[in-house]
């Protein structure tokens, strides 16, 4: 299977690998996928006092397309508000990396991961304001 240069670059030089403190109030964590399906993504965002995502980290178990998709979204969400980050579409990810049809699910998973991280952050924020 021939992969795009962008995809290979993200696979070989993944951006923002790592973990943030999942117990911290300003960190939202999304964990999506399943080991049995061959893909698990953990994506974390850290939101600053100004409401902007100041840091994002990921860890992914999955094929090269899954790793590249998650690496790419960590780059995209940084500096965005969570509302803006929420508008990232799997089709944008798939298009940017030129994912082959059998790998589209990787971009879907990356979108799910960012949404899950945002939901986690919002739940924490809501709890804090109560």
């Amino acid at each position, binding site marked *: *299977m021939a*992969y795009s240069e962008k995809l290979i670059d993200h*696979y*070989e030089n*993944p951006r923002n*690998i790592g*973990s943030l403190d999942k117990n911290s109030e300003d960190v939202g964590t999304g*964990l*999506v*996928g*399943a*080991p*049995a*399906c*061959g*893909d*698990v*993504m*953990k994506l974390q965002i850290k939101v600053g006092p100004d409401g902007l995502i100041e840091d994002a980290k*990921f*860890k*992914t*178990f*999955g*094929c*090269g397309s*899954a*790793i590249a998709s998650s690496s790419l979204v960590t780059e995209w969400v940084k500096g965005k508000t969570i509302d803006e980050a929420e508008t990232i579409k799997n089709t944008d990810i798939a298009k940017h990396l030129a994912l082959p049809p*059998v790998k589209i*699910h990787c971009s879907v*998973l990356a979108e799910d991961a960012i949404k899950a991280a945002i939901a986690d952050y919002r739940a924490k924020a809501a709890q804090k304001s109560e």
Partner: protein
Amino acid sequence: MNAVTQIRRNDQPIYLDYQATTPMDPRVLEAMMPYFTHKFGNAHSRSHSYGWEAEEGVEKARVQVAKLIGADEKEVIFTSGATESNNLAIKGVAEFYKDRRNHIVTTVTEHKCVLDTCRHLEQQGFEVTYLPVQQNGLVDLDVLRAAVTDKTVVVSIMAVNNEIGVIQPLAEIGKICREKGAFFHTDAAQAVGKIPLDVEAMNIDLMSISGHKIYGPKGIGALYVRRKPRVRLVPLIVGGGQERGFRSGTLPTPLCVGLGEACEIAAKEMDAESRRLTKLRDRMLKGLQSKLSDLIINGDLDHRIPGNLNISFAYVEGESLMMGIKNLSVSSGSACTSASLEPSYVLRALGVEEEMAHTSLRIGLGRFTTEHEIDTAVDELVRHVTKLREMSPLWEMAQEGIDIKSIEWAAH
């Protein structure tokens, strides 16, 4: 012992997929060459020396094939490959004996071409029993004995599995088949030339052979068909009645000659080559195990051809690993590279859980594999597995002591 010569170019990756196919041995090519050019005759032409010369080449090859498996040359028929041989053997006997017996026994870890042939026959009204295998990949002989009835026409069990390299207890299976009066067919594509095979001692009635798995050409194979007691087949391909009527069509002389030569070389070098490959495989395994934890060998390590390893690198997805080890040509235990995202059915049949099946690689060693290549491969694998584990959320959880099974994963 044969001298290991490098046949790949230096800009090519290290080939570690010998169960998929093998390069042709230069000695095989040399034997074939004259039959492409001046010895081009039709082996079935009886009226001139061109035909006789070609026939001589084909008949010599038939003897070379027969010798390797302890058969008589009259019992060897040439086909286009193991897929055709498997189709012919199973469909051929099933069709011929269908009035008396209509039951077939096989295993769930057979090659797709055997499983698909059996499915096809099921649609024709035959009954097929698909035996499970044990955790080590071997068939349970008691389960087999219980499955074979007086209605069983053929038991088809592969000699060596193409994914995990395990060797089935052929002699014991042959004995059970003989006792019950069922024919024993074995797909020996991965076994011929790698382990000693004897159709008499093992009571094998039909055996499928492939050329390109044993350093011979692609597009040629053979089927051993026992003559005493005679096994009858309905042919798949009819026409001029060549190959005792079992397989019509003009024989591809150069390919037959190549298969024969490949068999002769394999017979001569099997012992030394087995020892050499066992040493290389042990070196690889030790190298990996000394630097990586959480490796699981799939399939029995003792009852296995020396040239195969199938390893699960826990917490690292196989396809991403293959993408990293660009300098190594291996295949993934998981069939992720194909359109289906299902993990290997062979590994699943061993009871390997899906998440582990996704982390497997099949590594095949062969005649042209060198110690230096093995050392390079170990280094590359260690480097990339370590890198991918560092970015694996599952590895992180395992290090934190979290049981991955305790998490409720969303199915997708």
